Structures are given as structure tokens and as C-alpha cells.
């Protein structure tokens, strides 16, 4: 079966699901479940083959490169898990058919992007993806119009940039095939090189929320339903990374323009630092994760921008991993929202008592996000640092280190503010653990995060294959050890097993010693100067907890990109206010305009022709 058919099948299935929800909710849920199971089952068993469609004299080609299939794997896994997760999560909401249809459309759009071998079909699917995600962003109705508008404006800017790039490329290379474009790119003039690649980068950069173009992301990630945000932030933003990797590596690294790679890397580094700082001071968990996503995508941009073998490898690894752990974290937020209806640190505390499983998966995902050794995040961090150090990016490595050390702050805030701290009986009374169908996706992804921590080779294999598409042939990888460009190695098995062995050894000791006399007491029984805590006292300290740090970095926090855009929009508004005066509503004035226009046209035509 050809590739295009899958995408068309997904689109068709989306419409069928919409109709099924019109008939019956249960039937619709069955449709959703079937796609969630069929998608990976089909994807992991089929053999790729190319396919060409001719439309209006243009041949549109479809087929997977091994690079695209790496991302397709992420998209398929994450989407099917998110669809499964959606069934209980979205249960109480209305307009389900509309939601799932758009969800499936954006999944199909992503698959289409990855399958496109030419820029035109890529653009078409890109727009399908953008529109369907936009419709989900504004799914909540009028109150999110502003957020949706922001997202739409930035997507439109990206789309126009991309469209312009496609037109230019078509003019310069004669066709829109991606591979031929890469092949002919070195022959371009340097201005053409710069223009086409920058336009493409703008298009991709909007989706991957790179620094000056990130403004839409916090709102859009926050306002769409969490089960979709898992895909939105986990997989959909990776489409930007996919395009950026193609541009950065295929165009810049292999065409002797490393300076542009540096620009991408620096944009990524600055994004990572500033987004992390913003994430630290958020009091809404969704906003926190949204900014954290932006920061993590910054790391990936750094890896791709530097463009050495190890760094690109690290970038791709982090891209896959970010999809996984951020998928889990959004699902965790969704679980909390599902059970408590709240997403603000002011309202939530002590959930570990009632939602231990959710806490465990959140802990795993957070450790992976923070890049701590026993879990998989460390592998990516290690490769990123080593690649930066071995390629002499010694100032950038400080930025990245600052960002990932600062990330501990929001990681702690996330876990502590939601799950730990004072347990309020009043609040926890009606809370219970999430349904099994929500547990399964979170649990399975968390397990994979644990496994990749010691055996990253499981995921290195597809990445190494993907690297060959990007022009790095014969990338060596080992099951559980890492090596940098200077030949220094890191063996994960001894490190992780040692850690676990010591941990378990002391766990046994500390549990066995004096076991009978070790009592568990509630969080109201704390040492606070002997004052008994009444039930109505809330001592949970989780709002604005990083005030001292804010005082340190307040000079940089004052300047926000939003203000820049606000000024621009204000300027544009005033500009159009001026233009409005032209439309005076007076017939004579319009007649005058017509006369002036015709005269001008005459003069112009006489000079040009």
C-alpha cells in the first residue's frame, strides 16, 4: 500500500469519527481507540515505498527517508498514546467529534509533512497541521480568541515565509523536490542561499518556538486540551525541528556556511536560558511546562546548529526524548486537571497521597527532563555538552549549563507544588487516581524513559539511520556507552547499576533498622515551634517561591519579547488609523482617487514598457 493512502485514510477516518460522534459517544470513542491502536500497528509493520502524484504539471513525491521515519515514529507513538489518553480525559467535554477530527487531521498532517519529498506537498500538509491545531487551540471558545489569534498570526508569518521560499526555490532550481534543492543549493549565489534558508527557517522556527518567534507558544500550549498539548508540544513542535534539522545540517553544515549554524545555535542557547527563567516564575503549571518546552527546544536547536556529528546526534536524541517526557508531563497535568479541575499552584497541594502513580510518572519524567544520571535525559545532556566542549563552544556551554541548572528550580517547583507539601484534607477529599486508560500511556512512556537511561542504544539505532540521511554516514553507536570526539567515554551500565545498588542497599538498611518504631505521620504534624496546625491553616509554600532568584536576574527579566511585538502592533495600528482617513466616505474624494490612480498607472506604464 502506498504512503499517501495512509494519510488519506487518517483524514477519512477523522471525518468518520466526527460522524460517529454525531451518532453516539461510545461509538465515537471506539473509532478513536481503533485509530490509536491501528496507527502504530500499521506503522511498525509496513515497508516504505515511494509514490508520485502529478498535479497540474508538478510531480508531488511521497515516501519516507530514514530521517523522517525517526520523527514519524515519535509522532505515531505519541499520537496513539495521546488518543488513548483522550478517551477518558475528554469524556465530560462537549463537541468531541470536532475535537477528534481536528486531532486526527493534525496527526495526518504531521505524517504528511514527514512523507513529503517535495516542498509543495510539505507546505500543503503544513497548513493542514497548522489549521487543525489552530482549531483545537480555540476549541474552548471565545475566551481563548486572543491566544488563537496570536498563534494564527505567527503561523501565517511562518507560512508566508515558507511559501515565498518555495516560490524562490522553484525559480532558482527549477523544481521543488527537496533532495534536488539540497543538491543544487551550493550553486546558489550567497544572497540566494541566505534568503531561501532564512525564509525556510522562519517557517520552521515558528513551529519550534525559537526565541523571537516563541510568543504564541505559552498561550497555545496552555489553552488547548492537555491530551492534545501532549502531541502539540511533544510531536507537533518537532516538525519545526525536523525542518530546521534539514536546513541547518543539509544546507549550512554541508555547504560551508557554519556561521549560520552558529546563529541557530546561539538563538537556541538564548532561548534555552530565557525560557527557563520565565518558566521558573510561573504560577500556572501549564505555563510552566509551556516555557519549559520552549527552553528544551532551544537545546535541540543548539545541537542542530553546532552541526558536528555528536551534536546533531544529541539534538535528535533530545528531540525524541523531549517528545516522550513532555508528553508524559502534559498528560500528568491533564490528569491533575481531570481530577481536581485546577492547574494553578495556588490551588493544588499534596496530591501524592491520592495520586501516587501520577506522582511516580511525573517524577520519572522530571528526572529525565532535568537530565539526572540514572534516567535517559542525562544521555542527551552528556552528548550535548561533550559536543559543545569538543567543538570549542565554551561560552555557549555555560549558557546551556546555566539553563539546565536553572531548570532544576522549576522541576522542583513542579513536583513539590503539586504533589508534595501540605496535604489538605478538604482539597484531597474528592481526588482519586486517574482511570487505567490514562495510566497506561503515562506508564509505558515512563518505562521507556527509564530503559533509555541505561540502554540508550535502543533508540540510537533509528537515530543513527536518520543521521545517514543528513549526510553523516556510519555513525557509530553502542548499546550503553557514549563516546565524545576526543575519545573519552562514558559507560552507563556501571554508573547506573552502582547507583541503584547503593540505593537499594541503604534502602534495605534504613527500612529494616528500627522498622517497628518508624511511624508515618501526616503533614499537619510538623515541627513549627510547637504550634498545633489547625485544618484551615495552609502552610503550603508554593507560590512565588523563587523571589530571591528573581531579584538577582530582574535586570534581564524586564525586557520581554512580547513588549517588542506589542510596540510593533501598536505602530501598525496607528499606521492603519492614518490610512483610514483615506476612506472618507465622500464620493468626490473617491473620484479623485480614481483619477490619481489612473494617472499614476499611465505614467508608470509609459516608463516601464
Amino acid at each position, binding site marked *: 500500500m502506498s504512503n499517501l493512502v495512509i494519510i488519506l485514510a487518517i483524514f477519512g477516518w477523522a471525518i468518520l469519527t466526527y460522524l460517529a460522534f454525531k451518532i453516539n459517544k461510545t461509538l465515537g470513542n471506539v473509532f478513536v481507540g481503533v485509530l490509536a491502536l491501528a496507527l502504530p500497528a500499521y506503522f511498525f509493520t509496513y515497508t516504505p515505498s515511494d509514490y508520485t502524484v502529478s498535479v497540474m504539471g508538478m510531480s508531488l513525491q511521497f515516501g519516507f527517508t530514514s530521517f523522517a521515519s525517526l520523527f514519524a515514529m515519535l509522532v505515531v507513538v505519541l499520537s496513539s498514546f495521546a488518543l488513548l489518553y483522550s478517551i477518558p480525559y475528554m469524556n465530560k467535554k462537549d463537541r468531541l467529534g470536532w475535537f477528534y477530527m481536528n486531532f486526527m487531521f493534525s496527526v495526518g498532517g504531521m505524517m504528511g509533512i514527514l512523507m513529503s519529498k517535495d516542498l509543495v506537498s510539505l507546505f500543503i500538509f503544513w497548513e493542514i497541521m497548522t489549521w487543525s491545531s489552530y482549531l483545537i487551540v480555540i476549541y474552548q471558545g471565545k475566551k481563548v480568541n486572543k491566544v488563537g489569534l496570536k498563534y494564527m498570526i505567527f503561523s501565517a508569518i511562518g507560512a508566508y515565509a515558507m511559501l515565498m521560499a518555495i516560490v524562490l526555490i522553484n525559480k532558482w532550481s527549477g523544481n521543488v523536490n527537496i533532495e534536488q534543492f539540497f543538491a543544487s543549493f551550493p550553486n546558489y549565489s550567497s544572497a540566494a542561499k541566505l534568503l531561501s534558508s532564512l525564509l525556510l527557517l522562519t517557517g520552521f522556527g515558528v513551529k519550534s518556538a525559537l526565541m523571537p518567534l516563541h510568543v504564541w507558544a505559552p498561550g497555545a500550549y496552555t489553552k488547548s486540551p492537555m491530551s492534545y498539548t501532549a502531541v502539540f508540544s511533544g510531536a507537533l513542535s518537532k516538525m519545526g525541528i525536523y525542518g530546521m534539522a534539514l536546513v541547518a545540517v543539509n544546507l549550512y553544515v554541508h555547504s560551508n556556511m557554519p556561521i549560520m549554524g552558529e546563529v541557530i545555535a546561539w538563538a537556541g542557547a538564548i532561548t534555552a536560558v530565557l525560557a527557563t527563567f520565565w518558566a521558573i516564575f510561573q504560577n500556572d503549571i501549564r505555563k510552566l511546562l509551556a516555557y519549559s518546552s520552549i527552553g528544551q527546544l532551544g537545546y535541540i536547536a543548539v545541537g542542530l546548529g553546532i552541526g558536528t556529528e555528536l551534536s546533531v546526534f544529541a539534538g535528535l536524541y533530545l528531540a525524541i526524548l523531549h517528545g516522550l517526557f513532555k508528553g508524559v508531563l502534559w498528560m500528568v497535568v491533564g490528569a491533575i486537571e481531570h481530577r481536581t479541575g485546577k492547574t494553578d499552584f495556588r490551588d493544588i497541594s499534596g496530591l501524592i497521597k491520592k495520586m501516587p502513580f501520577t506522582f511516580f510518572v511525573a517524577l520519572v519524567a522530571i528526572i529525565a527532563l532535568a537530565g539526572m544520571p540514572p534516567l535517559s535525559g542525562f544521555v542527551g545532556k552528556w552528548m550535548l555538552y561533550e559536543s559543545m566542549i569538543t567543538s570549542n563552544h565554551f561560552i555557549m556551554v555555560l549558557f546551556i549549563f546555566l539553563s539546565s541548572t536553572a531548570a532544576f528550580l522549576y522541576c522542583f517547583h513542579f513536583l513539590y507544588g503539586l504533589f508534595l507539601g501540605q496535604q489538605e484534607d478538604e482539597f484531597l477529599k474528592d481526588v482519586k487516581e486517574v482511570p487505567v486508560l490514562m495510566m497506561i500511556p503515562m506508564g509505558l512512556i515512563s518505562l521507556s524513559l527509564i530503559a533509555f537511561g541505561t540502554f540508550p542504544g535502543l533508540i540510537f539505532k533509528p537515530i543513527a539511520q536518520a543521521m545517514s540521511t543528513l549526510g553523516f554516514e556510519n555513525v557509530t553507536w553502542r548499546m550503553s556507552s557514549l563516546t565524545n570526539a576526543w575519545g573519552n567515554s562514558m559507560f552507563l551500565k556501571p554508573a547506573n547499576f552502582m547507583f541503584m545498588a547503593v540505593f537499594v542497599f541503604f534502602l534495605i538498611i534504613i527500612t529494616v533498622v528500627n522498622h517497628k518504631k518508624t*511511624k508515618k505521620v501526616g503533614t499537619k*504534624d510538623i*515541627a513549627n515551634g*510547637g504550634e*498545633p496546625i489547625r485544618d484551615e491553616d495552609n502552610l503550603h509554600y508554593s507560590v512565588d517561591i523563587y523571589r530571591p532568584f528573581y531579584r538577582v536576574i530582574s535586570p534581564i527579566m524586564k525586557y520581554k519579547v512580547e513588549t517588542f511585538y506589542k510596540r510593533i502592533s501598536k505602530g501598525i495600528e496607528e499606521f492603519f488609523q492614518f490610512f483610514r482617513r483615506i476612506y472618507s466616505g465622500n464620493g468626490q474624494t473617491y473620484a479623485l482617487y480614481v483619477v490619481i490612480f489612473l494617472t499614476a498607472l499611465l505614467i508608470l506604464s509609459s516608463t516601464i514598457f
Partner: protein
Amino acid sequence: MVNDKESRKIVDIIQDFARKSSLFVLAYGTGCGAIEIPPTMTSRYDAERFGIRGAATPRQADVLLITGYLATKSLKRVIRAYEQMQNPKYIIGFGSCTINGGMYWDSYNTINRLDMYMPVDVYINGCMPRPEAVIAGFAKLQKLIQAGKADGWERYQNNLEFYRKNQKKIIHNWVMPDYNW
């Protein structure tokens, strides 16, 4: 060997030696006597040479010093702090106010006899006891610990009803968690 009575005693002796040589005192001043603690701890009298040092929270502390008169209002907090401490734990009644009320014997808001409310291991008399007397009190406590006789926490556990009855006589609005260790 572990079940042998004689060898268990050796373990106990070692543990009691450690307990006696390392006394963490809860930094909780109930009355005017708290002012005698800084000279006891600092360079003139240096209680740290006996292993006595301050602990910031009841969870880490071994010794609760009731420094002077104990108002009924602070009795509630002291009981709370004492119950949060971990066994074995000791109480030193400090100053004559804790023994019989001292100069506040007829006051409506200070208790007279500390040992009716909490199990006192050692009393230090005086108003105020000087740092030498405080150190002597600690030395007495250390002797008792080494001999295994500083069993105030066991008395508190075994006679909890008695102490609770007396405590509730003063503290009418009883809101504390159960004491079960």
C-alpha cells in the same frame, strides 16, 4: 550472640554511651531562664565539650530544657514540642519555677509543678541557676543515661492517661494529634 542477654547489654552500654555523649538540646526558651543558655554554650562555660549542642527542631533534639516559669499557654506548645521529639528524650526542669512555681506560685497563668504534666528527668534549682549549675544538671543527666535510668519518655508512654488528665485540666481546647510512639 545477639539473643544472649549479656551481649545485648554491651550494645546497650555502647548506645547509652553515645546517647549520653551527644545531647542535642532543643532551642526553645520558655521563660527568663533562656538567658542562661548563651553563656552556657559560649566560650566561658563551653557546654559543647560535653557533646551538648543546640538543635533547631524537635525532630533532631534529645533534650528539652524548660527554662524557668511555664505559662499555661506555652505549656501547650511545650507538650507539642516534646511529643514531636524522638525517643529516647529527656526533660530538664530548669529553675525553681518548674519545681514548685517559684515566685509565680500563686499566679493564675503559670503552672507550679512541671512533673505533673511532663516526665522530668533532672531538676536544676535556683532562680536563676548559674551556668555551672546548668552544666552540673547536664552531668547528672548524663550519669542517669549511662546507668539507663533516664526513662522519662517511658514513664510518659506508660502513664499517658495520668499526664493527659493533668494537661487537659488546663488546656480545655485539646486539638493535638494523637501520641503514639
